[in-house]
């Protein structure tokens, strides 16, 4: 059967399919074939081959978040979006861009810069459009420009049965039909293969500056964050970096006209107090994940006003389990990333207890704890997604879109 399937995949992709290598494994699960379609039609053809042969498919773009979530329970075809890398249309006057899923975010930004525009998304790393959408990646600019879902105005996807579907369009304001683009955002490849996306753009700011201040204790950080959000200084980003419990820094990004940024920088310095300093560029940690490949990576969300409860919970859990936790994130949005460095002495039970403790306290900060990534032994030991509200509705949606569970099976919440 193997050769026959490969022939079909080659036919679907104009010969861009081959047997998978070890390096094509997804989170330790080996793939059998790699197919690299060049456009939406070829992607549809690949999905039809998968449907005919009941093959499980995981899409791969830049591969920077391929190990996030659970490992797939089954994997046959790795659908490589690397050839779907075109910027289809940049309508500068309309401030929208249409790009294919495999296009890298930094390539796209470089191209938009010529028109003094940007896609106001700044997640860490060198990911592609498809993965940024599928993982709902978040970065500092979210505070003023919104999340992926807020800037995504149209989407083309290929369903598990190979049918191509569009939603939204290329205008920012549009309420015709259900917004499938938002449903696909953060769906980890379990509802369809994203092939093309339309984004709203913003002008590049004429000037920017960053104000930083040392802040470590939960009460101190909270006080500063509250001062900032209730001020009228409209920061473009407010980020906390807490590599150790007593070496924290709060950073504030200001963007706007040169005159305006100069004035607001002075006012921010005044608001935050004598220890605050300003600089033209962000500190090196700005917008970067506080973990490396192979570390335990957590995403923790919180109510903005309950930040001290979260920071205290992290500190307490860290002490109780003797796990050093690096924390960084968008404290005025309510999304933190946390990393537990792993080495040869990885204490799986301690990591599991850490996650349990944070989830146990979740009511106090109103958020959730997701294990984005971790060594396989850790993932096997705990529930990476944690409690999920509305899980039955999600199962129903999955059942409609992919009843045979061929798309990234097992990777998402509740075994979806």
């Amino acid at each position, binding site marked *: 059967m193997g050769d026959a399937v490969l022939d079909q995949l080659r036919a679907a992709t104009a010969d861009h399919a081959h047997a998978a290598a070890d390096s094509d494994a997804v989170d330790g699960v080996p793939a059998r074939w790699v197919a690299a379609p060049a456009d939406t039609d070829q992607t549809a053809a690949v999905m039809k081959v998968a449907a005919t042969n009941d093959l499980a498919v995981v899409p791969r773009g830049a591969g920077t978040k391929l190990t996030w979530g659970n490992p797939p329970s089954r994997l046959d075809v790795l659908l490589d979006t690397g050839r779907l890398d075109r910027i289809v249309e940049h309508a500068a006057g309309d401030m929208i861009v249409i790009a294919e899923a495999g296009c890298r975010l930094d390539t796209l930004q470089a191209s938009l810069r010529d028109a003094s525009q940007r896609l106001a998304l700044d997640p860490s790393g060198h990911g592609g459009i498809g993965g940024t959408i599928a993982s709902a990646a978040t970065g500092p600019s979210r505070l003023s420009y919104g999340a992926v879902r807020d800037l995504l105005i149209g989407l083309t996807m290929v369903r598990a049965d190979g049918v191509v579907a569009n939603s939204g369009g290329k205008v920012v304001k549009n309420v*015709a039909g259900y917004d499938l683009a938002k449903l696909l955002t953060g769906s980890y490849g379990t509802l369809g293969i994203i092939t093309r996306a339309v984004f709203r753009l913003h002008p590049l700011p004429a000037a920017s500056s960053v104000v930083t201040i040392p802040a470590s204790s939960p009460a101190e950080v909270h006080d500063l964050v509250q001062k900032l959000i209730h001020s009228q200084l409209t920061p473009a980003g407010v980020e906390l970096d807490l590599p150790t419990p007593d070496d924290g820094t709060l950073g504030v990004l200001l963007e706007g006209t040169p005159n305006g940024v100069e004035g607001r920088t002075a006012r921010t310095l005044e608001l935050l107090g004598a220890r605050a300093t300003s600089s033209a560029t962000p500190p090196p940690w700005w917008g970067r994940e506080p973990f490396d490949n192979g570390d335990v990576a957590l995403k923790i969300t919180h109510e903005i006003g309950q930040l001290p409860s979260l920071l205290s919970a992290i500190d307490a859990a860290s002490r109780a389990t003797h796990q050093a936790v690096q924390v960084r994130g968008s404290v005025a949005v309510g999304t933190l990333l946390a990393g537990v460095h792993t080495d040869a002495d990885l204490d799986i039970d301690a990591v599991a207890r850490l996650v349990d403790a944070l989830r146990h306290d979740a009511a106090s900060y109103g958020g959730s704890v997701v294990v984005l990534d971790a060594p396989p032994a850790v993932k096997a030991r705990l529930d990476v997604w944690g409690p999920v509200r509305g899980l039955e509705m999600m199962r129903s949606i999955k059942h409609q879109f992919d009843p045979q569970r061929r798309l990234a099976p097992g990777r998402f919440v509740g075994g979806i």
Partner: protein
Amino acid sequence: MSIRGLADELRSLLGEERVITDRQQLRTYECDGLAQYKVIPALVVLAESTEQIATVVRACAEAGVPFVARGSGTGLSGGALPHADGVLIVTSRMRRILEVDVASQRAVVEPGVINLHLTEAASPEGYYYAPDPSSQQVCSIGGNLAENSGGAHCLKYGFTVNHVTGAEWVTPTGEVVEIGGKAPDSPGYDLLGVLVGSEGTLGIATKVTVRVVRAPEAVKTLLAAFRHIEEAGAAVSSVIGAGVVPAAIEMMDALAIEAAEAAVQCNYPAGAAAVLIVELDGPSAEVDDQFDQVQRICEENNSFEIRVADDDTERAMFWKGRKSAFAAVGRISPDYIVQDGVVPRTMLPEVLHRISELSEDSGVRVANVFHAGDGNLHPLVLFNDAVEGQSDLAEEISGAILDLCIEYGGSITGEHGVGSDKAKFMPRMFTDDDLDTMQMVRCAFDPDTISNPGKIFPTPRLCGERPGRRQGAHPLAEAGLAEIF
């Protein structure tokens, strides 16, 4: 079960006074803001709590009777048009603002809360609720959620969907589900992303958590008058092209101005073929810098008069003409259709020209009011129903305008929704496969199609095999690893 049986059951469950079956009283609810469609519902329930709504929906689900949710009934696409054999669930009594939590920049409200009341409740703390449809003095947050309402200021601040972070939801089977909350990004699919704007077809929101936004330091508004509409259009493009993101840019053409003058005496500059209202907000220094820039751009594009609002009263006068424009055309025409379409902003001049050609060729007058910054047109198609054939002709022109929007890569609705009115246009914008895929979501939530049937989609999808609902606990839930709320 017959409707009469259902009415009796609901009376006993909810109390006599909450169930309306009297024909005269039912007539009050026969239409929403789009009055050309009228259907008298079989019965109306005036709900006062989540439990009551869940009770009604469960009873409907068991009896196979359709239900339609209605807030203030101000919608402009017939989204809350009742079903003749169904229950209309009115949420307007659920008007409590449950919490304004400025420390977390959120508010929690019941669905019947009036949009503007939330801003009023948050304003002592220096906060407001950003989405501001023109009907904000009467429309409800629940209705805004259903329609994903916009408003003049959504150019900068986004639509309802960008401001809702949580909801308590009654599914079409009558289950109560909590989705999201005050914190962002709850794990799993972005259900809110698809529920907001689903026009009542996926269930009913019974509590809504929204962002409240810090009021800007400065607001500046100008009104610029132009002799030619193309000049106003060019000014809009230049403003956006200069990297300015105004809070709002609104345009009205001569006919819309004439109507507004007749209705509210807004005293716009005489002889204008078009006026622009441009509002900037944010930190004072930025607003000052960019305001000068916008004034210069208007002058460069031959604006013959620019007025700057010195205070809130003058600002309100500028906006009065614009916000009253829909109703105002009643002064210059016995009947009119309010259209809502979108084109890419750079296509505005060309599309306006095509609309004027349509108008000249047919003899049907069209007044234009629009959110120019995001290309959202509200052409007002004027006619006299008493003259035979005019109504049909107006409908035809109104439809032709939507075809233009599609031709130029836009949308058949920017903020009013598809509802009953535009379902027939959906296949012109989307393929059968697109619509089929959207309806897979419908099947997931409402396989029996009892939640606001007949809206959005021209033809319902057969849902086929049902998902395994309530067929024993999922292994993860059983193992205590995942919870089902």
